[in-house]
């Protein structure tokens, strides 16, 4: 698979009241036709990375390429191939979803006829064809988000960049957006997505990178990332007993405890013990969120 996006030692330093190093030499490679997710806590550098790749922001050091074009030296060439949905984007109430898609297609230089077709196609792909004549002020949050995504899709670019496109959406609306994104990947588009939602990253990504404090701390397929943890199972125990930490690493969540164990047998043994003691417990394979929290820190350990 050849590369659609590649960053090379990308550094970004902001100088406002104090010096903030948002990216500390980020190297990421995204293949063509891949949905790649940049996962990280708030302030990790996800948006900064996306804004540099999308030519909205200049890096302090380093460079990145999109389809072989440098974002520093050839931003005009890069812009021909990308479409962006910024973070916390709002819709303009007087536009209809169709107008959004049509205008953005026209801004790309498409003829009126081609833009009309592109707008119709884009709205169909995000399941908004029925609502295309309604003004955005009358749409729900999820429908508004999909209208914006449709405007990016109507551009018919090779690479789509979306900054937290599902933030603030309910579960149903979120799935609608995910479905639209996976459809785009199926059609050969490359998508760079940022999120801080683990479920989203796990559900839609072909590959992902976990970024924290401006550094990439892990990169790979969701299952590869999960395999980075030596523990493979988690047991959530409602209550506490003295020897809980003998079973594995324990994370305290108020009156609940997550115990990370290496094997299925260890998980079963812990389950039996807790049930005998009259406590409630539930075992499941380790999640991406567990690995993420371990990698970026912030675990409230209760170990030996």
């Amino acid at each position, binding site marked *: 698979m050849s590369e659609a996006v590649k960053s090379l030692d990308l550094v970004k330093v902001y100088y406002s009241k104090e010096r903030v190093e948002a990216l500390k030499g980020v190297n990421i490679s995204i293949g063509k036709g891949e949905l790649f997710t940049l996962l990280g806590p708030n302030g990790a550098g996800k948006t900064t990375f996306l804004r540099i790749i999308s030519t909205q922001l200049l890096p302090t050091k380093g460079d990145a390429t999109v389809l072989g074009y440098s974002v520093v030296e050839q931003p005009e060439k890069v*812009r021909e191939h990308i479409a962006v949905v910024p973070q916390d*984007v709002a819709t303009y109430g007087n536009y209809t979803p169709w107008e959004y898609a049509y205008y953005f297609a026209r801004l790309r230089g498409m003829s009126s006829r081609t833009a009309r077709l592109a707008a119709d196609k884009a709205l169909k792909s995000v399941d908004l064809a029925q609502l295309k004549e309604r003004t955005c002020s009358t749409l729900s949050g999820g429908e508004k988000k999909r209208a914006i995504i449709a405007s990016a899709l109507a551009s018919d670019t090779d690479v789509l960049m979306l900054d937290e496109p599902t933030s603030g959406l309910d579960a149903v609306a979120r799935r609608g957006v995910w479905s639209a994104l996976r459809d785009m990947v199926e059609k050969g588009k490359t998508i760079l997505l940022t999120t801080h939602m683990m479920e989203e990253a796990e559900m839609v990504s072909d590959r992902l990178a976990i970024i924290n404090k401006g550094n990439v701390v892990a990169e790979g397929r969701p299952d590869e990332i999960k395999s980075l943890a030596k523990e493979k199972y988690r047991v959530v125990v409602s209550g506490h007993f003295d020897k809980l930490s003998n079973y594995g690493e324990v994370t305290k969540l108020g009156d609940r405890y997550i115990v990370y164990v290496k094997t299925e047998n260890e998980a079963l043994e812990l389950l039996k013990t807790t049930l005998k003691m009259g406590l409630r417990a539930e075992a499941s394979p380790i999640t991406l969120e567990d690995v993420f929290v371990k990698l970026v820190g912030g675990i409230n350990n209760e170990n030996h």
Partner: protein
Amino acid sequence: MIAWMKSYPDFKRNPLVLIVIALISAIPLFFMAIFAAEGMLIHGLIGAMVSTISFIGVSAAIQDISWDRYVKIREMIVAMPVHPASYAMGTALAPFLLSLPSLVFFGAIASLWGFLNVTTTIWTIVSLVMAWAAMSAIGFIISTYLYKASPWLLNNISNLLGLGLIFIPPVYYPETLLGGLSWISVILPTSNVAGLIRYYLGLLPLTPETVIVRWLILIATTVTFVVLTSLKAKWRET
């Protein structure tokens, strides 16, 4: 295209905006009709034309930062193959399109009163276009140098500019009423244009040299503001 997308949906879904634009500029005419001396109404009408195009020129750029910052259309456009000059021109042209019906209305009244013929119409249009350019340039200066200002502050600045550039200087009234201070009208693009239109309509006697100087000042003001904006404005953030 940018001008169209920033004006047509507003007009289509909220056509009252055209009446509001016309009414704001026409309010002083109402008082002038009651209280001002005979023959002053045409001066007020010229003021209404200048006001329509000027106020909207400033508010265009100011609206651009507060509105586009919220809906992030500009962020999306920066990452598109769109030239910054095209974006600026479209942003300035959008309110110009919205103000056209009001201008046509005021122009029709001036024509009915017998002040407009082909030549004076052309000169009036040219002068108004220049007022739009100058005031848009002022608007862009504000939006560029006060990029991080809150929408409330920008709104107040917009209102203050309206007072300072449109309602206080001799825009609705002839500069001759200022006596020795009439030179002030040359400094401000709004009153300068109003004076030029009065000259072309035969309401203000000016020497040909004065007219040339006034045009040069108007052009120089506009160019200066455009240059100052282009020195500071950044399409891509650093």
